[in-house]
């Protein structure tokens, strides 16, 4: 399949979104939404897997060529679909507004502009063409894109299939799939976008899809609030992203990524203050989208959405777009001395910070949400390095995390499904017999998340940590700060299995005990059919399982098996291909191949052993406190009541934000409202009253008395004549 076929990928999903939109109109039509969407995503996946590889640069033995030192134009292909914002090229003019007359002048002028072309135009002299703003629906396909398409469309298809079962009977069935389709459109546009503005389009539109899906159960005020919060927090990040785009355009006169990267990595490029700031602005966007400190607060709340959404958008794909963006624009980040360290630091700290919170949450999905934040922190840590292995690690972790976290969420969806929305791990216990498949599937996910040796998570996380230590212990110019981050990563690697298995042991092990939920999924039907509550959640056999947790349908389980296989084995089978992909992508065009530390220190092995032990320790700890001896866990918790309270309340970050930012702004709004009506409006009123005041003053002159009039007239005449006399002097 020709590489140009990839341009259809986003539009397939948009078409599907439109069809689903139409299907929304009749409830009966709604059932067709799932097949349409699944077909669309699967088709995208097929097209991507068939068409995209043919556009990649390969070396002689058919492997993907290493990107080091190559131009982005070579390692990837640009495929244009349609114009979006496409302003013509224009002629640059001299300072006095004239075109350059001589070649010297033209050269001088061209030097002032990035990517300017000098064109000889006959007798008229020379013209210097500088690009206009060209931000089209045009796609850049390099190995990184391929990787991302694999994740997005692959996981997307699986989750969509799961969703078809999970959402069955829901009134908003078609609406759900319409939003999912929009999401896939946006996400594919984003990962394929050849320019920053298209990237931004995808960036914001995934935000929209996320907004629509978090707020899917729109009747729940908490869902509405969470959706709003997600969108707004993301917007804060987007503000930085947008400004970053502006600054990039200011610097490079283009927003086309390949051109920007080509210029940024060219040897003649001399970084100036703009290069210094660009990554920081872009980073702001990444922090928002990938839920890093300080903009992570929206993600835990986002779990209000249907579970497939949490799996797809808020775990596997959308939230990783920050990682993708940093990887894609890595050369830009390298141009600024403090940008990458900042990314790494934020990532490391977030990973630890979120993990601590995750250890003391009771809501299953919340635990996974904080876990996602934490794992994203790892990825940031990875791509925040200047070494290849770490970047690879970050992106590899992106892939493995997509598998195991999607799996975890979907299995927790099963739990939720089976227990009518009960997610509190304190109220569930020993469900392994009632939900056997779910139990073992989730175990696979937990193991991978815990980075248990030989699972997928193990390889990817280790790659990150190796990279970190590599940079920290580098022979030349070592930066000890990275050692600190690495240690932080290792500590987190202990916390991760602990919280993961804490939940698993609680829910599936131990004595069988459960409290059914009260249906957390909104009350869609209640209004129309008061007796038919919950009916949408459960299949036909709803009544049989009314008060007992039950296993999910096969439609839902089938994709989980695929995910579980991925979570367990993608680390082994995916290691090489992914490494090849990453090393052939723009992320590493300016990052050297050779290791920074001496070969005799087998860092990889050390880290792997260490982290394997740490993971096992973490699992064992969790097993002791939350399975074998829950009383001990309780005792420990009682003893640590203070710190746990802090953790349970998530360090009160939400409250602090509310108090420090939201409340003051809103107060300001009220104040401005007052100012507007009283001061600004009052000022206008004052002007309105001025004539009236004058009128009131002038009124006595119209006393109605003849003599008064005569006198006034005379006085007036006298004054004016006096004026003439004075003026004539």
């Amino acid at each position: 399949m020709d590489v140009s076929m990839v341009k259809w990928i986003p539009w397939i999903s948009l078409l599907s979104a439109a069809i689903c939109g139409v299907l929304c109109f009749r409830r009966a039509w709604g059932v067709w939404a799932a097949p349409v969407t699944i077909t669309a995503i699967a088709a995208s996946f097929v097209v991507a897997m068939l068409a995209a590889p043919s556009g990649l640069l390969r070396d002689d033995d058919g492997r993907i060529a290493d990107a080091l030192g190559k131009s982005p134009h070579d390692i990837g292909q640009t495929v244009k679909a349609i114009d979006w914002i496409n302003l013509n090229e224009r002629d640059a003019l001299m300072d006095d507004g004239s075109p350059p007359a001589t070649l010297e002048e033209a050269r001088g002028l061209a030097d002032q502009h990035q990517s300017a072309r000098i064109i000889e135009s006959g007798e008229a002299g020379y013209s210097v063409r500088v690009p206009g703003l060209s931000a089209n629906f045009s796609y850049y396909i390099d190995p990184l894109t391929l990787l991302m398409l694999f994740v997005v469309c692959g996981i997307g298809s699986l989750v969509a299939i799961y969703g078809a079962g999970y959402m069955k009977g829901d009134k908003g069935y078609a609406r759900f799939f319409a939003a999912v389709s929009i999401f896939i459109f946006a996400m594919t546009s984003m990962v394929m976008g050849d320019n920053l503005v298209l990237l931004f389009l995808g960036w914001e539109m995934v935000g929209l899809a996320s907004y629509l899906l978090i707020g899917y159960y729109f009747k729940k005020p908490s869902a509405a609030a969470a959706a709003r919060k997600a969108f707004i927090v993301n917007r804060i990040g987007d503000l930085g992203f947008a400004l970053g785009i502006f600054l990039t355009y200011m610097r490079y006169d283009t927003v086309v990524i390949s051109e920007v990267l080509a210029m940024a990595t060219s040897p003649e490029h001399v970084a100036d203050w703009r290069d210094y700031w660009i990554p920081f602005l872009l980073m702001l966007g990444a922090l928002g989208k990938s839920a890093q400190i300080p903009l992570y607060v929206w993600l835990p709340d986002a779990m209000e959405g249907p579970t497939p959404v949490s799996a797809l958008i808020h775990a596997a794909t959308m939230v990783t777009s920050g990682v993708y963006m940093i990887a894609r624009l890595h050369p830009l980040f390298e141009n600024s001395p403090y940008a990458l360290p900042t990314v790494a630091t934020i990532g490391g700290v977030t990973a630890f910070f979120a993990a601590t919170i995750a250890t003391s949450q009771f809501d299953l999905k919340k635990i996974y949400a904080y876990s996602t934040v934490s794992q994203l922190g790892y990825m940031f840590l990875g791509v925040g390095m200047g070494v290849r292995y770490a970047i690879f690690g970050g992106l590899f972790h992106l892939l493995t995390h997509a598998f195991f976290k999607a799996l975890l969420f979907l299995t927790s969806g099963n739990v939720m499904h089976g227990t009518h929305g009960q997610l509190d791990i304190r109220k569930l216990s020993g469900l392994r017999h009632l939900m056997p498949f779910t139990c073992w599937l989730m175990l696979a996910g937990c193991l991978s998340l815990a980075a248990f040796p030989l699972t997928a998570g193990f390889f990817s996380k280790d790659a990150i940590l190796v990279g970190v230590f590599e940079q920290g212990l580098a022979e030349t110019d070592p930066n000890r700060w990275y050692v600190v981050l690495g240690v932080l990563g290792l500590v987190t690697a202990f916390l991760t299995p602990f919280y993961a298995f804490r939940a698993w042991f609680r829910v599936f092990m131990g004595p069988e005990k459960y409290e059914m939920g009260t249906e957390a999924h909104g009350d869609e039907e209640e209004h129309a059919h008061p007796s038919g509550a919950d009916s949408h959640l459960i299949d036909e056999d709803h009544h049989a399982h009314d008060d007992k947790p039950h296993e999910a349908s096969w439609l839902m389980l089938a994709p989980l098996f695929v995910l579980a296989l991925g979570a367990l084995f993608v680390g082994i089978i995916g290691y090489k291909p992914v490494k090849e992909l990453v090393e052939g992508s723009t992320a590493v065009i300016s990052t050297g191949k050779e290791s920074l530390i001496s070969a005799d220190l087998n860092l990889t092995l050390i880290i792997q052993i260490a982290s394997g032990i740490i993971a096992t320790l973490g699992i064992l700890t969790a097993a002791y406190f939350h399975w074998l001896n829950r009383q001990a866990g309780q005792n420990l918790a009682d003893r640590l009541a203070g710190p746990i309270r802090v953790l349970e309340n998530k360090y009160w970050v939400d409250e602090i934000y509310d108090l420090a930012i939201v409340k003051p702004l809103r107060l300001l709004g009220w104040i401005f409202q007052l100012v507007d009506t009283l001061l600004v409006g009052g000022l206008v009123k004052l002007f309105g009253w001025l004539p009236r005041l004058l009128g009131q003053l002038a009124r006595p002159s119209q006393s109605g008395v003849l003599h008064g009039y005569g006198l006034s007239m005379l006085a007036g005449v006298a004054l004016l004549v006096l004026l003439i006399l004075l003026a004539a002097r």
Partner: protein
Amino acid sequence: MTLMGEKLATIGPEMVLSVGALLCLFLGLARSARVRHATPLIAGVSLVLCIVGPMAWSAARPAAPGEIALVLGLAATPMAAFLKITIASIGLLLLLVSYRTPDQLPQNIEIERSGAAFDPGQTTRGEFFAFFLMSLAGAMLCAGADGLVWLFLALELTSLPTYIMLVTTRQSTLAREATVKYFFLGALAVAMFLYGFTLIYGATGVTQLYTTPVTEGLATVQSVVAEWRQEGQPLPLMLLVGMGLAILGISFKIAAVPMHLYTADVYQGATTPMTAFLAFVPKTAGFASLVLLLGTLGWPLPEPIAAMLWIMAVLTMTVGNVLGLMQTSVKRALAYSSIAHSGYMLVGLLAGSAAMEAGQPVVASGIAGILFYLVAYGVANLASFGVLGCLKRQGEEAETYQDISGLHHRHPWLAAIMLISLLSLIGLPPLVGFLGKIYLFAPAFFTGEPAMIWLVVIALINSAISAVYYLRIAAAIYFGQPSEEVERDEQTARMTGSGIAATAAVVLGLGAGALGLTDMLAKAADQPGKVLIQPADTDGDEAASEDRSNIPSATAGRN
């Protein structure tokens, strides 16, 4: 014969009107009711003659150069011609509006109903139309006057009949009170400008303003002043004070501060058609006189006079508008608006025609502004008072906001007429009032003086203020609840009159150019004193520039 014809053309309209007035006066005493009822017809015919006659005359015999069109100190200037046609045309509409005014007087109604024998002591039909015509004739004479004496007489001829009309057309204490104020304060004003005229005469030694009737080479006020100014002498104080007093006295007619105090009371006290008359005719006469008087000084005006006029302009427009805001009576509000509009026109008077003389286009001439604005204000004013005159509340004249509330529901056409006139008064495009504003304010820029530009800004702010009360009227008409007690006075003629005026406001706004009005204006706005005496060998335009340099020697008349 030719000479005679020209002379007739000079004073023809006034003569026609006088004859008409006499006819009305006499026929109004006729025994037959039918004959008595013919008086308005006679008035109408004579007004039509005033419009058609001169037009036909000039069409038949284009003014040949070298002819003296000057009769006894009256000059047939283009401005006079323009004003005469304007006065006659709007006079015709005024006639339509006030056609049945005498019929509505209680005593007349009683007599007509009872079929009692005609008693000249009781009824006033003929007089009304006679005075109507005389007053118009006076205004026309003002426009053509070329001497202080004529000016004085013409102004008096304009006002004296209005006193009588005012008091006889409404059987109400209010009308009497209005008359008292109007008459006595008017007399005061007359004395004032008369004294001013005296001082002007004292300073210059002549009473002719621009031309001399008998011998070429005699001095006129204009020539004397021009000589002084040419020699760089300061103008004598006597002249300035005289001019000041004259302006102030005449500003009674135009209702400018400080001589405006009577305006609202009189307009309110008068019967509504009469108010329309008062708001237009004396004002036109006054402005014509002011233009002629100030023309002798030449623009730019001497500093003291300009300063005085500037202050007067600002005060007039501001006082008019801010007091208009405070009113509960529509009639009174419109009266104040009349004051304000005089203020606007004073801007044109201040700007004058200096720039135009320097070769600038017509729009540079404040005189053109005034002339056009008189038309614009005339039609809008007439329409608004006309509509008001069509309404009665329990037999009394409607005048409060309450009375016109919801007019739209009951009489949409009246409401529409009122709306158009109000919008034209605000100066909203594309109505004639808007064009008037361009004509009036653009010249101010041509003076190039910051003070004048500020004056324009003040004027425009003032028109924004005026919009407040105009809109209040419009809002009452269109948004208010109709009052059951108010009914329409079945007066087709009055409605027609205001309807035509409103139509004119639209048509002239859009088609002033197409109808040739602005070409007439261009001619009329040529320097005021200029008569039809043209050197034999030049045509109009070149003569315009030469004529001014040809100022006759001023010393001849003095010793």
